[in-house]
């Protein structure tokens, strides 16, 4: 009833090319953004902000990064956690070694470091494709984590590479409470997500998609595959790097290279598969799903069998349910939550009439 676009006419190109062409979507989007910025900080408890909302946002950013590479440019990567590590350690070192380095600049430089490393490890993509490339990106995963542990310079000579993030301070304002960290993360994620959404609608994004769909054909119509692939690696790694830096600064505070292991890479891959490959919206949905699912399972398990089952079985049952749910999801909705969202919207347009 309410969700109709009847009577909304586009009279200029600009109007036709809006991200949200339907007015209700625009209003809804601004309302959601307003809710997250203005209302939620007052409603949510510190636990919610620190343990759920901040990681969901950070993982959404990482998932957007991987989605750019895998969903839009079609290059399967299993090394996203390593690029997050580069971002985190890059930002840490610039904060540490440059006096008076502003946090946001360090964050951007951390992302740029990750982008550089990403381009270096993206070079093989010019020659190899598909699963060969996926396995090749594992080289990045293992090599980077190994290098961060082995060379103490990266972690300022701390034992086993553990770093403690410095205090976040922007223009003299210290971000030390969960609320302020949440707002900072939300702001950065919102800006970068908007940039990503626009980027994938631009010439660059279209050339990525052309390469994804068929790289030889893309080359024939005049797209440079080298530029498209490497720029996808750079932008994707930049997003992962910024997410990694936020992971260290806004979420955990103390990180070690081993924390950015293959499991984390898989987690991010799960997020985009469950959320929807090739969808910015899907990155958020997938991240929320993957972060919330273990917490939910844990709570459900504890309330169901409060203390009556052996400790080992609980974690195994979680593994079983997690694995089972992933398979179930892939079978039921291979295009992810973003597709469900789309179907829901289309249904809503007709509701309550059948046609």
């Amino acid at each position, binding site marked *: 009833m309410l969700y109709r676009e009847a009577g909304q006419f586009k009279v200029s190109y600009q109007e036709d090319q809006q991200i949200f062409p339907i007015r209700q979507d625009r209003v809804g989007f601004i309302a959601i953004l307003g809710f997250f910025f203005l209302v939620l900080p007052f409603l949510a408890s510190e636990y919610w902000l620190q343990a759920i909302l901040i990681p969901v946002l950070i993982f959404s950013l990482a998932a957007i990064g991987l989605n750019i590479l*895998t969903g839009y440019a079609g290059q*399967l990567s299993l090394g996203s956690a390593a690029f997050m590590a580069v971002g985190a350690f890059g930002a840490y070192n610039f904060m540490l070694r440059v006096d008076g380095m502003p946090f946001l600049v360090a964050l951007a430089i951390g992302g740029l470091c990750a982008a550089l490393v990403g381009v270096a490890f993206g070079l*093989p993509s010019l*020659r*190899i*494709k*598909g*699963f*060969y490339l*996926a*396995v*090749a990106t*594992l*080289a990045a995963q*293992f*090599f980077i984590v*190994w290098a961060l542990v*082995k*060379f103490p310079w990266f972690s300022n000579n701390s034992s086993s590479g553990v770093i403690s993030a410095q205090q976040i301070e922007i223009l003299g304002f210290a971000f030390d409470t969960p609320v302020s960290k949440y707002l900072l993360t939300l702001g950065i994620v919102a800006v970068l997500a908007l940039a990503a959404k626009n980027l994938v609608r631009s010439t660059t994004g279209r050339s990525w998609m052309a390469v994804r769909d*068929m*790289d*030889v*054909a893309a080359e*024939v119509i005049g797209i440079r595959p080298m530029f498209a692939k490497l720029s996808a690696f750079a932008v994707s790694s930049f997003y992962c790097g910024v997410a990694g830096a936020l992971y260290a600064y806004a979420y955990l505070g103390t990180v070690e290279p081993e924390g950015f292991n*293959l499991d984390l890479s*898989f987690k991010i*891959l*799960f997020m985009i*598969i469950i959320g929807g*490959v090739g969808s910015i919206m899907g990155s958020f949905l997938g991240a929320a799903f993957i972060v919330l699912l273990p917490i939910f399972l844990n709570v459900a398990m504890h309330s169901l069998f409060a203390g009556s089952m052996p400790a*080992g*079985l609980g974690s*195994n*049952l*979680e*593994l*079983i349910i*997690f*694995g*089972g*749910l*992933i*398979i179930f999801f*892939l*079978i039921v909705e*291979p295009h992810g939550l973003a597709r469900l969202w789309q179907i829901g919207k289309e249904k809503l347009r007709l509701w309550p009439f059948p046609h």
Partner: protein
Amino acid sequence: MGFFFEVLIGGLLSGVLYALVALGFVLIYKASGVFNFAQGAMVFFAALTFVGFQEVLPGWTGLDADSNVVFWLAFVLALAAMIVLGILTEKVVLRPLVNQPHITLFMATIGLTFLIEGIAQALWGANVRGLSLGIADEPVEWIMESADILVSKFDLFAATLAGALVASLALFFQYTKVGRALRAVADDHQAALSIGIPLQHIWAIVWAVAGFVALVAGLIWGARSGVQFALTFTALKALPVLILGGFTSVPGAIVGGLIIGASEKLAEVYIGPFVGGGIEGWFPYVLALGFLLIRPEGLFGERHIDRV
């Protein structure tokens, strides 16, 4: 020089083990185009099931725990479990996902990995267990006397077993009806379907064969380093072998395994000290990556021709 050969032979023999795991990957990838990440979990599951049966069987049947009967009974039961697992995987996971993109199938096998790991540990517990195949891990005397090189009896036995397994698989593929059907499916799904080969049976068989390979690999790895969760990481050891040898080639898996095993050990011994050691984790990947830059389809992989 003796030391060099010792390292080389040690590397080659552990390469045989990598090749065994890689073999399971290749079988499934060739027949169904699925990149089966769960192969490592299957190795773990197989070994754990075998050891688990070995523990409980004496209680059930009243047989002596060390007797051969228990060993083979446990082997048969574990094999049966792997076959059931293979058939279930085909029925429950793969069949509904036919025609999905490769990445979706790949993700499904990662989900399967979690599932199998959880089930294995829920059934048999997470303790590290010893596994004995009755072969002592001691140097062979006549090699030591004649060439002054330490070669473990157990490693030789493992290599022989792996060789026998590969040979019998090759014979199976070459000379049996099912083997021919498997090769036909690997060649071209649609053509195989059109001449009346039941694709889904073939997939179930392939998963069962991969389960058998996983069991053998699990027994050898388990006897070497104990049956524990770390067995699932054998999959990560097998991946560089795969890209080096080519995803679709059985000989590639063997040769790739040998190359990776040998070069990894040599690099750890001769390059490792200069960069702080522990390079075994990534060196095989970088090696395989460098190799791919020259031959993108691996040593024996099928050359892929792009057509617009």
